[in-house]
């Protein structure tokens, strides 16, 4: 079976948006690591913020955090030491929303609508969808821990397949 091609032109806006969002609103420098096709056995997250994409292109964006990183990121976003579980979930959803909204302005040629965020909370939960073998996962590291961003986009005009290594976008 052929490995799906990573379309860096689709992923770069999301990497840039993640770096900018964390810099501006979470007050953290983040660096992206490996970019690859999501594996069926991918380690699951404890908090997932999911945004649906419709319109000129369809798909989803999933921002996944381990529990400790999610709490620390929410704390830094809010500027509060103690953050309730519901507020952590709300923050993860809002960050996913901001990243997706910011990224879509750098995807030319199509008008993409984004959904309200959905947040799934639960130790090592697994999200299964028909597009699992088409999702591109990017790993990020920041001083508060690691997290991931999965992007699935279908229907965009023009494809420029290439590969990318670790570093800043």
């Amino acid at each position, binding site marked *: 079976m052929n490995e799906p091609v990573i379309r860096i032109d689709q992923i770069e806006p999301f990497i840039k948006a993640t770096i*900018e*969002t964390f*810099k*501006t*609103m979470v007050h953290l420098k983040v660096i992206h690591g490996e970019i690859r096709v999501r594996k069926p056995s991918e380690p699951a997250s404890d908090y997932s913020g999911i945004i649906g994409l419709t319109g000129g292109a369809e798909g989803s964006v999933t921002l996944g955090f381990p529990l400790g990183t999610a709490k620390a990121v*929410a704390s830094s*976003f*809010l*500027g*509060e030491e103690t953050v309730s579980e519901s*507020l952590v979930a*709300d*923050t993860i*959803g*809002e960050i996913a*929303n*901001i990243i*997706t*909204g*910011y990224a*879509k*302005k750098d995807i030319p040629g199509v*008008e*993409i609508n*984004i959904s*309200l965020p959905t947040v799934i909370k639960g130790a090592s939960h697994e999200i299964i969808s028909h597009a699992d073998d088409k999702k591109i996962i990017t790993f990020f590291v920041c001083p508060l821990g690691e997290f991931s961003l999965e992007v699935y986009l279908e229907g965009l005009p023009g494809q420029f397949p290439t590969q990318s290594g670790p570093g800043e976008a």
Partner: protein
Amino acid sequence: MRILIVDDSVSMRRVERSMLTDMGFSDIKEAADGSEALKMVSSGKFDLILLDWKMPVLSGLDTLKRLKASPDFKSIPVVMVTSESNKTKILEAIQSGAANYIIKPFSDEVLKEKLEPFLGKETA
């Protein structure tokens, strides 16, 4: 000066409240969607509204249009604070009466700069 923050995300409302508090404002109210915002505006005077776009119940754009269609509330400056970055939609908001437009993510400096024309002498 009385400011209303309208956003379905409680964390985003807290961040905006914190930024406004740092700018010297203390009379700040919050609404979780457009419908709640319209009720609050109807029952109390506001000098400035920060309005998210994507919200359940009643969207920011529909809320903006209803405010601007009302002789009683059309003079309240409404600044959109949203992750909606599509140029066509930004133009639609401005044409519908938005006084300014802030795209998330944004810093406290950007918020202050965008709100400056509508703020009273309370700002630092």
